Every structure is written in structure tokens, then in C-alpha cells.
């Protein structure tokens, strides 16, 4: 039962990263590739109707994590207190800038929110990457399964690490590169003309950086966290996930060359899903490894919630997610196609 919930929580978090990833990515490339007001409205318009729905995956994923693994939720949220609060501030700033940019027609107003939007998106990508790095590296858990990390200590992983050390910063930069690519592909897909062309050009350049960073974090992760190699060797079928990641990355290159925007974007989704599921499979059964004593690490067995609740949860989860998938597909289909920037009579659009 706890393994099922591990898979479901991992799925929801991966969905969040893939979906909110492209709109965070759109924010990262925003100032870079969109120069005129029309360009920028096109970029924001491409995520406008969907970004808050994407963010719901974070809230829903967090809620499911809370009830399925209360001990993990309690330990990690309190231990990552500072970075999580900063993530909240950035999410607030970013959400506000997307929603409010279009409310006042003034170049100064728009320019201000453009910068807030781009900056908060960049920082969120780095913070989420660093958070993932912390989970893979392990945290200084004590025998009661609790810890608190300051923002940084000496920038080295060890028994007394901070949120930021060279490894987690490396993962943060890798996440920034990956989401730049992901967001660039989304913008290329959803816009037309110069913006789309610039986005494509940016993606083909940043692709090399993503390859480089993928190699770097993979090497570093296997060095720092022996559990990854153990976990993958114990479950050889798990190798489909790294293969998925590599195939996705090659697919981005291949389809981007052929200007096949939808497939290139899907390949990027596969790359991100592959990377996250590889990490999850490698760590399993650990959900939060300890940097102190491996025995203090939280596993799916030690962190899961009471049995009856998990069984009840499975029933409503399946019903609820079937409904949610329905609305999500409906929304994306209704807003399918390229964004057309216009000040139409209905005042719809950004």
C-alpha cells in the first residue's frame, strides 16, 4: 500500500514539475526572447489560462504527500523551513506578476511585472533544483527523524550540510538549464513569428548546456549517494527511466532540427519525467535519506500514514484524479493552437 502511494505522490510531483516547469520556463526566457510588448503578451498569454491549474498540482501533490506520508511531510517541511518559505514568496510574486501585468496599460507597469516575472521564475527553478539536490544528497536527520538546515554552512555536503552546497547548487543550475529548454519549447510551440523563432534558437543553444549538466549531476549524484546505484541495481526494470530521460533529450535535438514543435516539447517532458523517476526509483525505499547515519533515513515504511486512511484515500484519489484529468484535457483543448495577440472586443486574453 505504501509503495502504491509512493508511486502516486511521485507521479503528482513529476506532473507538477513537467507542467509548472514549462510556465516557469516561459518566465525564464521571457525577457530573453520577447522584446516588444506584443511579444511579451504572447509569452504570458501562452501560459495565462493554464498556469494556476499547473500550480494546483503542487497543492494537490502536497496535500496527498501530507496524508500518505505525514512523518515525511512534517520532517521535511520543518527541516526545509527557510527555502520553502522563500519558494512561497517567489510563487506569490510570480503569480501576481502573471495575473496583474495586463490589468493596467502602461509601459512602466508592464516592464516592472516583466522583470518580477522573469526573476522569480529563474529563482524558483534554481530553488526547486536545489531542493531536489537536498533530497538526493540526504539531510542531517537525527534519531527522531527531524532536522533543520540553515541556508548554507561551508558549501560542502557532509554530516552538517546547508540547503546550498556545491552539489545542490549544481542541481539548481541543471534545473535552470532544463526548464529554460522546456519553457523555450513551450513558447516556440504556442507563439508565432519572431518570438517563436527566437525561442527555437535559444533551445538549440541551451540544449548543449542541458546535456553537459545532465552528465555532471548524474556523475555527482552517484558519487554522493551510493543508494542510487544500489536501488537501480536492485530493480533492473528501473533502467527504463534513465533510458527515457536520454531518449527524451535526444528527441528534443532531433525534433527541434525538424521544426516539429509539438514532438520536441513532448520529448522534453519525457526527459524531465525520466530524470525525476530515475531519482525516485534509485532512492526507493528511502524518501528522505540521512546524511548523518543511513539508519536515520526516512523510508516509505517508516513514514507512511495509518493503513485504513491510505485504503480509503485510494478510492477518492482515483475518482478525483479521473475528474481532474478530464477538466485539464478539456481546458488544454479549448486553448489549443497558437496565441493570437489582439485586443479583442471581449477583453479576453492578455
Amino acid at each position: 500500500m505504501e509503495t502504491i502511494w509512493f508511486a502516486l505522490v511521485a507521479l503528482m510531483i513529476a506532473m507538477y514539475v513537467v507542467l509548472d516547469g514549462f510556465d516557469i520556463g516561459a518566465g525564464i526566457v521571457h525577457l530573453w526572447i520577447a522584446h516588444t510588448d506584443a511579444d511579451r503578451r504572447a509569452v504570458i498569454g501562452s501560459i495565462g489560462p493554464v498556469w494556476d491549474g499547473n500550480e494546483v498540482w503542487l497543492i494537490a501533490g502536497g496535500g496527498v504527500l501530507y496524508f500518505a506520508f505525514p512523518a515525511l511531510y512534517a520532517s521535511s517541511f520543518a527541516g526545509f523551513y527557510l527555502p520553502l518559505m522563500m519558494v512561497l514568496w517567489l510563487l506569490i510574486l510570480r503569480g501576481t506578476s502573471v495575473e496583474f501585468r495586463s490589468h493596467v496599460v502602461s509601459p512602466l507597469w508592464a516592464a516592472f511585472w516583466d522583470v518580477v516575472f522573469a526573476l522569480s521564475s529563474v529563482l524558483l527553478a534554481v530553488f526547486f533544483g536545489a531542493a531536489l539536490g537536498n533530497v538526493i544528497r540526504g539531510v542531517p536527520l537525527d534519531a527522531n527523524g527531524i532536522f533543520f538546515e540553515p541556508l548554507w554552512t561551508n558549501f560542502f555536503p557532509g554530516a552538517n550540510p546547508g540547503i546550498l552546497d556545491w552539489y545542490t547548487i549544481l542541481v539548481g543550475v541543471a534545473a535552470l538549464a532544463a526548464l529554460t529548454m522546456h519553457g523555450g519549447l513551450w513558447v516556440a510551440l504556442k507563439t508565432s513569428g519572431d518570438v517563436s523563432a527566437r525561442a527555437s534558437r535559444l533551445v538549440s543553444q541551451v540544449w548543449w548546456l542541458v546535456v553537459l549538466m545532465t552528465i555532471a549531476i548524474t556523475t555527482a549524484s552517484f558519487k554522493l549517494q551510493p543508494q542510487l546505484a544500489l536501488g537501480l541495481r536492485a530493480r533492473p526494470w528501473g533502467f527504463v527511466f534513465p533510458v527515457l530521460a536520454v531518449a527524451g533529450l535526444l528527441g528534443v535535438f532531433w525534433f527541434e532540427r525538424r521544426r516539429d514543435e509539438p514532438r520536441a516539447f513532448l520529448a522534453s517532458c519525457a526527459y524531465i519525467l525520466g530524470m525525476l523517476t530515475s531519482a525516485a526509483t534509485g532512492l526507493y525505499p528511502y524518501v528522505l535519506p540521512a546524511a548523518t547515519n543511513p539508519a536515520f533515513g526516512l523510508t516509505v515504511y517508516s513514514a507512511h500514514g495509518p493503513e485504513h486512511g491510505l485504503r480509503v484515500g485510494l478510492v477518492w484519489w482515483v475518482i478525483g484524479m479521473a475528474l481532474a484529468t478530464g477538466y485539464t484535457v478539456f481546458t488544454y483543448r479549448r486553448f489549443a493552437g497558437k496565441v493570437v495577440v489582439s485586443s479583442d472586443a471581449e477583453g479576453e486574453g492578455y
Partner: protein
Amino acid sequence: MADALFVHRLHFAFTITFHYIFPQLTMGLALLIFIMKTIALRTGDARWNQSAKFWGRIFGISFALGVVTGIPMEFQFGTNWSAFSKLAGGVIGQTLAMEGVFSFFLESSFLGLFLFGEKRLGPKLHWLSSLMMFIGSWLSGFFIVATDAWMQHPVGYAIEANGSYALTSFWALILNPWALAQYAHTMLGAVQTGCFVMAAVGAFYLLSQQRTDFGKLFLRVAITVGTIAALAQLSPTGDIQGRMVATHQPATLAGMEGLFQSGPGAPLAIIGQPDMEKRRLDNPIIIPYALSFLTYRVWTAEVKGLDAFPRNQESDNIPLLYFAYHIMVGLGTFFVAILLLAIFKLFRGTLYTSRATLWILMLTFPFPFIANTAGWITAEVGRQPWLIYGLMRTSAGVSKQVSAGNAWFTLLGFCGLYVVLSVLFLFLIYREIDEGPAGHSSAPGTPTQPQPAAAD
């Protein structure tokens, strides 16, 4: 003040109070927008549709702020209250996760469609998206109230060997009698916030002699729905909620009412300041026997005062509890009075020209926000010193690993950010009201009949 527990409590209190400004407005407006869309669909009158879309834009701004200030609430269960979450997550995590899975996907999808998709959807589907927004926001409210209700009146659980709480009955959690009573009371409060805001804009348009036809539509809907909500708020829902507190949290009732001495024929205090040293109310104005009657329907029934409970069982802030409760009830009574006056004039046909009544309606809109907030303070301060009533003390639930310094740091960060959000919110709402329902998109008076879904 440097005590970590105090800072963590203040952190949650501040962020939840600010957050709840937005959901009470959106939950109230969701109902009113749905009513307007329904009238628009049935009559084909374009002004109703324009009104619904105007309030949809205000809903959109408030919803965005509700979302961004709501995510911190879920996070704080883990960040600031991890000891509580570790033990209770298996139960209250159910309702919190269900809120995400059942209502947020619904709400966010259909809000996007409602705001940006009228042309693509056509009138029927656009009406349907307003219904879905309404259902989504009201479901969301239910799951949150059910979560709080379990902390007020825990049901359907068992205590595991490691001290954590395990769910034993899903339906007991969902159909907790406390949750049902509290939900009805909470939602009626939200409806009144929506109605008073809508009435205030309507009164403003009439008094300033601009867009008077829209002003009249707003007043008609807001006053009619508001009157029903205000009456039902007082009775039966307020009454049921009060007797629920009397049965399950008698010490809370004594604190709310400022009743220090137990006895038969307990009086109802209308005015008076609790003096916690001398254990009495200063300069009280009371209605004799009324509390006994309201609680037990018997004029001479025995009501337990604070003297009947050990000091460590009573709320740690009785003055705040007492005033929050009295402010809520006082404002609720005031709302009933002005709404009855307004609906009387509406039916007589004199409301639109009655300047004094319009002025009152225009200026009343901040008070439902205060009344709703005071209601929640009554519930939450009243529950103290318990985090889960009768089971877990508030002091036992805090994240011990997060120091007071770190909590102050993030509390101050939220204060700064929320000041900025408040200014932005007021500015943007003012602009929407200034532009009005018809001015935003097309020339005034031009009907914007919904177009059939554009081929796309």
C-alpha cells in the same frame, strides 16, 4: 515575545487572517455570478451577462490572491506545526488532500474558461463554467471547514501505538456534525461578504449617477440574496453552532459569553469588558436569563461559567475570544437590520432614490469582512489551549526545530509582501469599479451578445 510558540501562532494567525479576506469574497461572489449568469441565460438580457463578467473579473483578481496566499497555509502545517502534522496528518491530511484533488482542479480549470473562453465556449458552456466555479469554490470551503471541525470536535479516529491519530471512519470525518453546522454558518458569512461588496458598488454607481442601470441590477441581486443569508446566519445556523459549542466545548462558551460564575438563569452579556484579574465583567449590560434560554431553551437552566473549569482548560486569551464573539454577533445583527430596511425599500420601489440607505449600503462593505474574521477568531481562540480539542495541546504541536528567530524572519517577510499585495488589490479593484461592467470591453450600451464558439 521571543517565545517560539508565540511566534509560530502569530505566523499562522496573520497569514490565515489575510488569506481569508479573499476566499470569503470569492465564495460569496461565485454564488452571485452564477445567479447572474442564470438570469442572463434565461432572459437573454445582455446587461446581466455583462454584470456577471464584471464580477467575474473581480472574482479573478481575488481568486489569484486567494491562491497565492493559500499555498502558504498548506505549507505551514508542515513547516511550523510539524509535530501536529506528524501525528494528525493521517486524518486531516485526508480532507486537505481532497480539497486539492476535488476542488482546486475544478476551480482553476473553469475560472480560466470563464474569464478567457466565452467566445470559444458559447453561452451554455459559459454558464456551465460559472456553475463549476461555484461548485469548486464551495467544495473547497467544505474541505477546509471539515479539517477545522475535526480539530474542534475530533470524530472517527483511533490512537495508534506510536501516538498518531488514525482514521477509522471516513464518513464520520466528512459528516462530522460540527463540520455541517460550521460549514453552513461559514458559507452564509461568505455570501454576505459577496452581497455587501456587490451592494456597495451598486450604491456607489447610483449615488455617483453613473451606470445606474447596472447599479440597480447589482442592488437587486445583492439585497435579495443578502437578506436570506443574514437571517439564516442568525437562526438557525448561528443558533445550532452556539448549542454545538455549549455541548462539546462548555469552557469555550463560558469564555465567549464572558460568564465567570456558573448558575441557573445565566444572563446574556451585551456590553462589558472582561477583567481577568478580578474574574468579572466591568460595567456590564446584561439580559437576565437569556443565555440559559438560548443555550437550553429553559429560562432557568444551569450554565457553567469559567469557575467550573480548571484554569488550564480555559482559553489563554479570554478577552480576545469574548470581543471577537461579541463583534461577530453585533455586526450580524446590524446586517439583518440594514438588509431588512433595504429589501423593504426595494419592494416598495424607493430604494434607488433613498440616498441615506444607499450611503449606508455603500459604507457597510468592510464590516462583513470584520464579522467573518471575528467569527474565525472566536472558533480558533475558543479552541485554545487545545490544538485538537481534548487531545493535543497547542504547545505540543509546534515545530521545535524551527527557532523563534527563523519564524520572526519569515513572519516579517510575509508582512512586507502582504502590504504590497493589499495595495495592489485595492488599486486593481478600484480600477475595475471605475471602468465598470460595460466600459471594459465595448462602448456603453452596445450589447455584447455571446458569440458562438469561434472556429479555432
